[in-house]
């Protein structure tokens, strides 16, 4: 079975986070809103209503295109794609069939492979239907939300690579700031085209639509590859069709065959003039783009982090940005910050923290305090959480540590005074003697006494060293 080659192309719909919809001036954010409360007469497709293009969506498109190293087409146009469904008020979707705004490009995946982008076009989303027993309800809040549909070339050859591509696409869109990126809310939805073949010629493909988690993408590809190989091995033919994925069943099922495919009767959209951009505008947008995951990767490569650790951080643009800023301040102090991010901040219980709160300056200072043994690593984590918990970011890490009474006593003079006191105390005489006689286990008791006397501020390692020096 291993001689089959898998070929995958992926279409991804990204909902843009513009303030208003693509062709009307109503709120584009329908999360937690009453059904049909974010609907203008244009979205409702009243007679005589005309679409008015939202220019902010164009800028988001340019940003998304640049993030994928795509050519930006200076002239693009809209077309109408016709079909009847109650969630499509006009009876057509305004999309870009012939002249999309985003041209060819390429995405570099973390494993070093490249996936080429065929094109990406701007279009409007449809509404949502909820089915009940004998009736269905229509919610048009989402109708008219701007979407870009990103079409990849069939450059993907495994389920793992498919997942990696989708994850990287998600990162790129987040970095470009064009989407809220909430997969659960359907901000990004994926259609996977899968085929298998033993020869150079591609096999018949199926399209599995509307996947909305990275895990389901990987599972659906695995399932489809297995299913198609089984069909071919038993002498059958794969049918070209649209399939749906059931997460619960872990299966794809047939939805619509090629013969039943609709004729969308595409037509140029006469109500929206062509979008004509100046190169200087594209250049201006390019200059405003932030650092992209690839650039961060090459920088973080210097920190000797685990691959999974740096990729986890890269999933959060704000954390990547902070880590990079710490690198720029003092690269030696950065790995510790990276560990804090991946080990502490990204743990389940801290997902609700506002990751933007701590500044690079504070994080660098905190790392430096540990470096200088002014703070134990446990103490540092406590300060770190405080930084992200409260909005008291005006305070320095040092001030916070002091306020939390976590500063370690590293002044050897002051420590020596305490140690002398401990060593001469009658209750410690036996332990001191034991250490003098080479029974090093007893040193723990002495260190503990010093810690107690210093009210926890002494650095235990330093105390340990000092006691050893004194008794040997």
């Amino acid at each position, binding site marked *: 079975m291993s001689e089959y080659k898998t070929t995958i192309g992926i279409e991804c719909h990204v909902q843009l986070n513009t303030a208003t919809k693509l062709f009307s001036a109503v709120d584009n954010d329908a999360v937690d809103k009453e059904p049909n409360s974010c609907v203008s007469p244009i979205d409702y497709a009243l*007679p005589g209503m005309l679409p008015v293009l939202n220019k902010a969506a164009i800028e988001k498109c340019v940003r998304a295109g640049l993030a994928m190293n795509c050519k930006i087409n200076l002239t693009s146009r809209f077309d109408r794609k016709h079909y009847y469904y109650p969630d499509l008020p006009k009876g057509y979707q305004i999309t870009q069939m012939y002249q999309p705004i985003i041209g060819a490009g390429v995405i570099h995946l973390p494993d070093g492979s490249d996936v080429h982008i065929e094109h990406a076009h701007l279009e409007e989303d449809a509404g949502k239907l909820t089915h009940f027993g004998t009736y269905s309800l229509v919610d048009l809040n989402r109708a008219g939300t701007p979407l870009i549909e990103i079409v990849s070339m069939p450059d993907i050859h495994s389920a793992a690579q498919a997942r990696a591509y989708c994850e990287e696409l998600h990162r790129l869109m987040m970095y470009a700031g064009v989407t809220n990126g909430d997969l659960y809310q359907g901000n990004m939805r994926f259609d996977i085209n899968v085929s298998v073949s033993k020869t150079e010629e591609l096999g018949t493909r199926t399209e599995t639509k509307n996947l909305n988690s990275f895990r389901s993408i990987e599972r659906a590809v695995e399932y489809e590859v297995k299913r198609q190989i089984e069909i071919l091995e038993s002498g059958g033919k794969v049918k070209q069709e649209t399939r749906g994925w059931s997460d619960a069943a872990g299966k794809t099922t047939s939805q619509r065959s090629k013969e039943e495919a609709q004729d969308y009767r595409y037509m140029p959209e006469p109500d929206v003039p062509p979008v004509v951009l100046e190169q200087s505008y594209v250049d201006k947008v390019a200059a405003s783009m932030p650092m992209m995951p690839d650039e961060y990767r090459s920088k973080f490569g210097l920190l000797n982090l685990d691959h999974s650790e740096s990729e986890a951080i890269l999933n959060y643009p704000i954390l990547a940005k902070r880590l990079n800023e710490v690198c720029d301040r003092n690269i030696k102090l950065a790995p510790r910050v990276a560990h804090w991010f991946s080990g502490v901040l990204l743990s389940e219980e801290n997902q609700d923290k506002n990751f933007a709160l701590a500044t690079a300056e504070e994080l660098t200072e905190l790392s430096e305090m540990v470096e200088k043994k002014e703070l134990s690593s446990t103490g540092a984590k406590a300060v770190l959480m405080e930084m992200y918990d409260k909005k008291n970011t005006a305070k320095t890490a040092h001030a916070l540590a002091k306020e939390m009474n976590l500063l370690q006593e590293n002044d050897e003079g002051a420590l020596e005074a305490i140690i002398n006191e401990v060593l001469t105390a009658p209750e410690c005489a036996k332990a001191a003697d034991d250490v003098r006689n080479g029974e090093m286990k007893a040193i723990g008791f002495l260190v503990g006494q010093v810690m107690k006397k210093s009210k926890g501020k002494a650095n235990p390692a330093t105390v340990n060293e000092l006691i050893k020096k004194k008794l040997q």
Partner: protein
Amino acid sequence: MKIADKNTKAVDLVREALEKAKEYEDYHCFISMNEARALDRAREIDEKIARGEKVGRLAGVPYALKDNYLSREGVTTAAARMLDNFPSPITSTAVAKLEAEGAIMIGRANLDAYAHGSSTENSYFGPSHNAVDFDRVPGGSSGGSASAVALGIVQFALGSDTGGSIRQPASYNGVWGMKPTYGTVSRYGVVAMASSTDVMGCFANNAEDVDLVMSIMAGKDPKDSTTLDNFWTRELEDAKPKKKKIGIIKDFLGDGVDPDVVKTIRDYAAKMKKNGFEVEEIEMPIMKYGLAIYYIVQPAEVASNLSRYDGIRYGHRASDITDLDSVYSKTRDEGFMPENKRRIMIGNFVLSSGFFDAYYLKAQKARTLLINAYNEAFEKYDALVCAVAPAPAFKFGEKTNDPLQMYMEDVMSVPPSMAGLPALAAPAGISKDGLPIGVQLIGPRQSDQMLINIAKTIAEAK
């Protein structure tokens, strides 16, 4: 234009119009009347005048509104069962601008359902009648508007023109009708027919009134991305032709054109010559393809624009529905007139996969050639002249069973529509049977006022 002032009460103007509308009720110019609201508005204007406040340029002027314009006053039907009883929550930009200048809508004028037709015989509510000959059609699709102006019920009326829907009824009823440059007046709030050629224009009894109404409606509208910056800014007398050269389109003077129509155009040309214009006949062979281009592009856009009438959100919905398919098929079967369905079928056919290139794409290429031919002609001439339609108004039922004959009505009016050019219909002659015959003046984009200026010059000349 008779406008309300200290001596003329708006209420009297409106009352007079309403009385005339009643007097000519048989002509069925209107689908619904706006009596109470019109009188209220008239009183408001009279009070303003009495208080010495400023009133608009159309203060108290009653007008008829083609019933495909949305307005919060009353219901908009587009003369289709599909929109029977549709109270619009918005008012179209054109209507809002007129009302801001004090114009008063007294009723909704009849039309062919969804503006599909050349006779108003496709109205769900029954046809209107020609103002000159009751047994004949008023033309269409803006037949009710044209007839209402010609009967003297109102001083002006609004129409919409996709392929001749203002010019042809103007010609049939002997009134002035302006189809402006594409994008002159906002299409916002007007039931769409074919978006790439739909324009909003008006009917009136003389050149000045056309110019005044159009100057008010013209201008950029952020709600319609295809509108142009307002170019309707000159005094009419300042919009004189520079070259004083006119081309008479020879291709529309030959076979299939009524001899009375040919004579009217030749007489008009002679009158122009007499009044200082250089007049030549020009051959434009591409004109004969205009109709074929139009009856591919227009139904395609019609089919698309009518997709929204699905019985889900507003308008008519069939009662005996069983599933989603029947919501669509029964609703649309009941809601649309046969001519609407014919265009939906043609439109979907020319857009369907496998036929798109052969029909729609080819038509768009031919459309470009048509535009080029006009551009070439306008290098030499200020304006082109031809008839509006091949013959004067026809009798009811004469063409209803032959859709192709009906489409031939549009042969002279659709070419400027496909090119987005301004075209003015002005009364020019009378047939042997006493029926009005109009002349059509076509100019380069945004030369609208110049066309009115030329037609006015000729109308006033001996």
